[in-house]
């Protein structure tokens, strides 16, 4: 086996993989691209991902380079070549136990920080929406009293209207099996579990239509269990809400 070929092919494979990965980072649009966030939560999640992706990439490059270097440098040249028998090295062992630990400690801090920041309850002044998931559709109930009248709260199906730059507090409930509420450009997902109410929050920093999709396998209609989040200017939102109440 030709060493150059090993090196070339492996090199090419890795280069292609990385070029592709980087290309994926935003360059190829897509309405559910998590690398192209439209809200603070999704942005924070992307940043954390990249924060870890960088050392991970470095480790991968180091390990791959080490393999290639070793394979080339220590290739058997004659059949009766006999290397010195080394059984181990305590100092190295300690080093490569400690070094990852230190690196991991550095990664753990922003992770835990992120867990508690993003995991907090929605603020009181948020727009409160109850999301009801069922096989295979979505219903959204706008819970805030200011949008309610004697008949109750406005309700929409398949389209969730939200005002830009205002926090949205979501409570999730399911009528049958487990679903998962996910708007990739706005925030990571949270499961909608029958018998249980999960809560999350997010916001949209730009007006626009953000496609969302059920992310937990929920039966034959799972692939089609989609919805849109439509973020509009606050004034526009209030007008829309009034209109909803007017038309029963």
């Amino acid at each position, binding site marked *: 086996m030709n060493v150059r070929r090993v090196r070339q092919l492996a090199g090419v494979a890795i280069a292609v993989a990385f070029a592709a990965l980087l290309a994926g980072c935003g360059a190829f649009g897509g309405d559910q691209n998590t690398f192209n966030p439209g809200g603070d939560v999704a942005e924070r999640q992307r940043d954390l991902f990249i924060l870890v992706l960088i050392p991970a990439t470095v480790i991968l490059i180091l390990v791959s380079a080490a393999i290639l270097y070793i394979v080339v440098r220590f290739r058997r040249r004659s059949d009766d070549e006999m290397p010195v028998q080394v059984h181990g*090295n305590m100092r*190295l062992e300690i080093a490569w136990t400690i070094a990852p630990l230190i690196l991991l400690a550095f990664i753990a801090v922003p992770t835990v920080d*992120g867990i508690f920041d993003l995991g907090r309850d929605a603020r009181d002044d948020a727009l409160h929406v109850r999301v009801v998931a069922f096989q295979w559709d979505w219903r959204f109930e706008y819970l805030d009293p200011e949008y309610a009248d004697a008949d109750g709260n406005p309700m929409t199906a398949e389209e969730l209207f939200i005002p830009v730059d205002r926090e949205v507090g979501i409570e999730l409930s399911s009528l049958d099996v487990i679903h998962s509420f*996910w708007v990739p450009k706005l925030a990571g997902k949270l499961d909608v579990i029958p018998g249980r109410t999960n809560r999350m929050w997010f916001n949209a920093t730009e007006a626009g239509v953000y496609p969302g999709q059920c992310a937990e396998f929920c039966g034959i209609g799972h692939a089609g269990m989609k919805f849109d989040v439509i973020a509009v200017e606050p004034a526009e939102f209030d007008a829309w809400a009034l209109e909803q109440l007017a038309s029963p």
Partner: protein
Amino acid sequence: MTGAVIEQRTPTIGEALRRIRQEAATYNGVWSWLATVDHKRIGLMYGATAFVFFLIGGVEALIIRLQLARPESSFVDADAYNRLFTMHGTTMIFLVIMPLAVAFFNLLVPLMIGARDVAFPRLNAFSYWLFLSGGLLMTASFFTGNPGGSIFDGKLGAPDGGWFGYAPLTLNQFSAGTGIDYWAFGLLILGIASMAGGFNFVVTIINMRAPGMTMFKMPLFVWMTLVTSFLIIFAMPVITVALFQLLFDRLFGGVFFSVAAGGTPLLWQHMFWLFGHPEVYILILPAMGIVSEILPTFSRKPLFGYPFIVFSGIAIAFMSWGVWAHHMYTTGLGTTANAAFGISTILIAVPTGIKIFNWLGTMWGGSIRINTPMLFALGFIAMFTIGGLTGMLHSMVPSDFQQQDTYFVVAHLHQVLIGGALFGLFGGIYYWFPKFSGKLLNEKWGQLHFWTMFIGFNVTFQPMMILGLLGMPRRISSYSDGMGWGLWNMMATAGAFLIAFSIVVFMVNVVISLRSKEKAGADPWDGRTLEWAIPSPPPAYNFAEIPQVKALDDFWHTKYVESETGVPVPVVAGGAYGDDHDSGEGLGIHLPSPSILPLIAALGPAIMAAGFIYYDNPWLLPLIPVGVVITLVGVFGWALEPATE
């Protein structure tokens, strides 16, 4: 004492049994396989069966890929698609990777520790037959078609709950028909088979070592077998309980997972993943053991940091019990739980890293020969590192809220399972093929196999990382244009066919190599461990004389002595002993007698399961007592029959 019992049976049956036993003892013919208790034959049967299931699971994967190649595709409908990916995942994990690893346990462990067989040869045969019947039961569900129609109406009957079968989707209410029942009973039976194997290998390794082989003189593969077996022993009961609960809910109206009755579906998830995460290490540790055998041989150096690799394996096994909720970050467990499980998950990188670095240390300064087994081992290190690092990306809780249940997970799991487990196992096949067939696998075809598989693997699964980041959820049977996913999916599909091609190359290689006239010899790779000391293929009794072990890599030390500077010098008379005796009798070796009873006992559970699945059908209900009777007959006969005659 026991011969008496046999004689008390009616003479005709007794005679017939005796004839069968005699035929089985001759080491050829169908009976000799059905009644074998020889660990090498059982290992080969495990391997061959797992490979057939691999082809089935692979064809399912190819259909999945064809469906996803283009947006809005309708190659298969949503219903069939769901059943296909469920069976694909279940098949690949429980019927391919696990049994393939068990095949290696069977083939190698007794040879590596210098034993004549495993501790319980008939229990071993029982494991295999139970595995086969469980696998067939589960696969049979394809044909039942449900609800309504059958496979002949173009309706697949397979389970449709995904490989982790989340309740309540798997309850009757949401999954009518029998697919999930087949799935649950199949997994129950496979679980018992695995546990029986697990017990057997722990006892074998702890108790059957050749004199002088202390625990820390055992080959690393044996260590990983031990650790994996312990994981199996403790993880399988957990899923057994969960599956029983699911079946009670489905068949007898239990309310374990019923929300209306106050239960919680999350119970299933906790149980499944408490089993499921140790399970993924059950899948990878054997491959790590294999790689730890290949690297030293092809580098002509002992394993670097042997005790550290051993202990990191043990550490991984322990830690695997404390991370299960990383599959449940998005279920709303709360911030504290998420933080705790996030950190415990991150920590698993440390022992895994120790292994990777020690493997690099093994090769460093060695004399490296790159044959196909070594290529697969190198591929393992590189590709498993990618998979492990994507695992690290998953472990970051907040960002995993984006990646969970997307193609990023699909990418991760295939990177560790194919780039990791499967590459390792293929490396093992190339490495030990000569030992058990007496023929080396062809090197040219082997390299073609490796490179097509390596490239195909990268072309298939790296794009899935991008798809995940582009927001493509997993388990969707079709997607709309305009998401920007088409190109990457097309690429993945192309790659999958390249993998399929590489598998064809492998099969051709096996056929060509088996037909070749060239004999491999006892020790084709200049091996280090005991199995290379005996002829290829090994005689039924393995070792004519049980070796007296003095060192780690004992066989290597019979071939070389280290000079003052640590350089090995060949010993003139060292090496394998190749004297052939056809049966152990001449040497006064008693081998366990063949027995058909493990096979009979193993038929019972699947028959019982069929009875339970169709218990509302008066014609099929009697299958339950029939299955019970068959099991009892098998077990009692087994208990009363002498182990050696």
